[in-house]
């Protein structure tokens, strides 16, 4: 089945009759698998069952079949033909009977007239014959003989009966075509040509000239073929993305700034596709689509008709189908954002050459400066270079005067922005000084603690427990609820709390990356939830255990009188016994750290604000903004409409 390429069909060998081969489960179909949970269809000749997926027959299609014979049977016995229940198919059957070709799928496939749209339109009709034909494209292709042998029959069929439908007049050149060209974007999207089957449209050359949506151009046989095969020249390639291609941007950007939608009458696919997704996308897309309309000094030699509302409405429907391409669009977004940084060339969305509205007979002239070649179908230019040149010329002509216009009068918003930036800077400064203050306190604290530890060397055995023991009074622990001795209450509650807390996680996806911060967040990675612990490192009960206290260590907590006044003295009790100052280092450290965290948050906020102001400032008078908008000043004296003095 090399002909099809992309179809991952299981090999044709051993199609049916070798079913039971002594395994436990009976195996079926050409894939030789015992799976019977999917839709299956049975050959009326050999009674072998085939999976619908494997032979490309859906349940829906099968509903219309009366008699069905597998490929192999049909190969072996030419008289076996698939019979349908569909009314029109009776015609088909009668046609096929007189064309005694070995494969009627061949006939089905080569019968474009009956239901060509069914091949392509999602959700329209049950083109059994057509679908079947597609599915069995491979066997057909693998043996070229019948192809050659049966042109007469096809011709006959076509002459007798080229189907007319809502989308096919049956009489135009496109309707008469029987084969897909294989080169246009729609063909290359087809499975049989190796495509991902996302667009699902008829071959470009087979789109009915009268009735197809967005009547595509079908170059008639008389038109000289372009020198190069069509696809490479047409801008919106790879067809998977429907023409709005990122690759395009890089390579073509046929008009960096002004890319009028090609095929001027159908810009709506652009608009409708891009629209709901993302303002960034849309912005640049708009930059492309909108530039042309109604700006007289920029009009091309041909005028662009306004969006036809009827067309627009139809285009909306198509959009829903295309929504599935969200993933590819996300990628586009990202690359788009990157592109936007370069103020030089604002790439525009290429107009997808879904369809052209121009008369199919003549292609207009390329709009490139000094170019006399015909434009590509679906485009205004003969090549990317022409488009680029035209765009560059436009920018050169228009941008300087726009810049001048902008600079004619002071921009009030700009001034506000500058003032705001000033303020933010100042606040950032103050935040940083606070941070330094905190760092200083941090070091101070450490030194106090160190000093306390030093004192441990001179151990003290004073054990004056200031408070009298109220062992009758029972306090209930807030975490576990057990009654505890008030003397050890603090110690117990700390431990108890740590126990419960260590069972919960508190983290975020991102590791902390702050320059210059010595110790803030715990940041231990939890592989299960893929998060980094965001508790304060000094406090985290989950990831740090309190170190064991040696027997001779002294508490060392600076003592205070009346809560606030430092006496300069230190608690001399052994740490193990001191109940008043349990864990004092940890808590003090945490205090300082928390303060530092707060300052960092504030700084973060300020950075955010600054970034916003800066982007506003750049976008306000950016390339796009200047090219798309204009403020005409009529009174040279009045640059500011405020009646009072500038604030």
């Amino acid at each position, binding site marked *: 089945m090399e002909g099809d390429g992309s179809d991952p069909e299981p090999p044709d060998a051993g199609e049916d009759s070798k079913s039971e081969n002594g395994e436990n489960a009976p195996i079926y179909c050409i894939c030789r698998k015992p799976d019977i949970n999917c839709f299956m269809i049975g050959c009326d000749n050999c009674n072998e069952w085939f999976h619908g997926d494997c032979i490309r027959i859906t349940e829906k299609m099968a509903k219309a079949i009366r008699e069905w014979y597998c490929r192999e049977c049909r190969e072996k016995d030419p008289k076996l033909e698939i019979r349908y229940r569909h009314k029109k198919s009776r015609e088909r059957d009668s046609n096929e009977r007189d064309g005694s070709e070995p494969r009627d799928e061949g006939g089905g496939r080569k019968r474009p007239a009956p239901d060509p749209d069914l091949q392509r339109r999602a959700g329209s009709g049950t083109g059994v014959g057509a679908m079947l034909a597609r599915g069995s494209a491979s066997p057909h292709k693998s043996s070229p003989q019948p192809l050659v042998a049966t042109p007469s029959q096809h011709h006959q069929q076509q002459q007798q009966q080229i189907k007319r439908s809502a989308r096919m007049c049956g009489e135009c050149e496109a309707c008469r075509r029987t084969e897909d060209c294989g080169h246009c974007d729609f063909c290359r999207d087809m499975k049989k040509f190796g495509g991902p089957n996302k667009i699902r449209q008829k071959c470009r050359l087979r789109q009915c000239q009268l009735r197809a949506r967005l009547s595509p151009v079908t170059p008639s046989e008389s038109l000289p073929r372009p020198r190069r095969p069509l696809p490479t020249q047409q801008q919106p390639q790879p067809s998977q993305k429907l023409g709005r291609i990122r690759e395009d941007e890089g390579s073509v950007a046929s008009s960096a700034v002004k890319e009028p939608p090609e095929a001027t009458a159908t810009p709506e696919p652009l*608009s*409708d596709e891009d*629209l*709901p997704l993302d*303002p960034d996308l*849309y*912005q640049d897309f*708009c930059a492309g689509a*909108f*530039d042309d*309309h*109604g*700006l007289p000094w920029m009009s091309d030699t041909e005028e662009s008709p*306004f969006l036809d509302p009827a067309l627009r409405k139809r285009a909306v429907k198509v959009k829903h189908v295309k929504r599935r391409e969200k993933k590819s669009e996300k990628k586009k977004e990202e690359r788009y954002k990157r592109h936007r940084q370069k103020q030089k060339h604002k790439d525009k969305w290429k107009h997808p050459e879904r369809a052209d509205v121009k008369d199919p007979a003549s292609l207009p002239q390329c709009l490139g400066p000094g170019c006399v070649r015909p434009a590509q179908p679906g485009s205004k230019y003969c090549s990317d270079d022409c488009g680029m040149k035209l765009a560059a010329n436009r920018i050169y002509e228009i941008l300087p005067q726009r810049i001048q216009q*902008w600079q004619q*009068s*002071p*921009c*009030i*918003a700009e001034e506000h922005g500058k003032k705001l930036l000033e303020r933010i800077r100042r606040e950032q400064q103050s935040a940083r000084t606070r941070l330094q203050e905190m760092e200083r306190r941090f070091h101070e604290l450490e030194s106090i603690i160190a000093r306390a530890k030093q004192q441990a060397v001179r151990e003290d055995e004073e054990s004056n427990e200031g408070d009298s023991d109220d062992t009758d009074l029972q306090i209930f622990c807030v975490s576990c609820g057990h009654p505890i001795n008030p003397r050890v209450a603090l110690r117990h509650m700390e431990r108890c709390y740590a126990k419960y807390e260590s069972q919960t996680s508190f983290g975020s996806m991102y590791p902390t990356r702050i320059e210059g911060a010595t110790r803030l967040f715990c940041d231990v990675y939890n592989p299960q939830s893929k998060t980094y612990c965001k508790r304060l490192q000094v406090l985290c009960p989950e990831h740090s255990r309190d170190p064991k206290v040696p027997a001779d260590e002294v508490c060392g907590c600076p003592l205070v009188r009346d809560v606030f006044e430092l006496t300069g003295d230190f608690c001399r009790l052994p740490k193990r016994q001191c109940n008043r100052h349990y864990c004092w280092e940890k808590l003090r450290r945490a205090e300082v750290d928390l303060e530092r965290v707060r300052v960092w948050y504030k700084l973060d906020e300020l950075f955010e604000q600054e970034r*916003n102001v800066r982007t*506003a400032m750049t*976008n*306000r008078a950016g390339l796009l*903004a200047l090219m*798309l*908008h*204009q*403020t*005409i*000043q*009529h*009174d040279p*004296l*009045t*640059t*500011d*409409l*405020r*009646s*009072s*003095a*500038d604030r």
Partner: protein
Amino acid sequence: MFVRNVAGTPGPPITIAKKPKYRAAWSRAGRLADQTWSFIAMATEESGDAKAEPALSSSTNRSQKASEKPDYALKFTLVGHTEAVSSVKFSPNGEWLASSSADKVIIIWGAYDGKYEKTLYGHNQEISDIDWSSDSSCLVSASDDKTLKIWDVRSGKCLKTLKGHSNYVFCCNFNPLSNLIISGSFDESVKIWEVKTGKCLKTLSAHSDPVSAVHFNCNGSLIVSGSYDGVCRIWDAASGQCLKALVDEDNPPVSFVKFSPNGKYILIGTLDNTLKLWDYSRGRCLKTYTGHKNEKYCIFANFSVTGGKWIVSGSEDNLVYIWNLQTKEIVQKLQGHTDVVISAACHPTENIIASAALGNDKTIKLWMSNY
């Protein structure tokens, strides 16, 4: 009058010539002049203060030109929309001008210099109306895609999308507290939405034709809605009860309704080339303004209170009409647009009018007057 120097700041005023006029104003305008006299007294104390000067001149002008005309002159033309502009609104703090258009975007311009600021994208269909919140930080937009969107102007992002209407949303309005939004739609209903959650709180359906305009009064207690069926209804905002229905003899479709700034009157525009000022508590029409052309489009009209008291409205003959509120005579017609002027907005503090026109024109024009 005072002269502006090139930088735009008011220059040294020429006061001498004015003095005799004060007295004349006093005797002529009677009570009105009392107020102006106190103004003048204030001004002369701080005579060097440039700020008082405009107040001074405007007040004197007001007194002496109580029946006089404004002199709006075209100052800026803002080009940028690629389709017809549907609505323009000044922000309550006077800094920005927002314009919505059939090209599905909203553009924010600086109100004083007319310079482009940013564009808000997101709607799938044309936008028919926008409104600012009271703190000038949010916008609500009503679109043909049956949704309303609440935007944060600072960041340019859409905060919420309000879904619920079953047909084009035509008009929208914030309440003075800016915690509620009302919207009128082609599905003949008025919906009240909560801003914080984006949920529809109430649906008032008492019209039999598309609702063309909705408006809160100055303290947010009443809602007025006008519709093509010719009826204006007044609702209690808290309960959703219809308090009153204003119908004229032959009920022409109502294209626009708005409360006056003091909340006592309603300005109703109808598609028979008429604007009427109603006292709704008594259900009587007090003033009628005609001369313009309005038979097809829902054209916005406004009260101009910063200088003289005018009624400002667009018109289908490409002009902006300004009437004297009391005398009902046309005091000025602003020419410059090349298509129907669909929307005219008045600046909250300055004598600036912004007007926007439809598809043949697609521009917004800023006009300024001295009084």
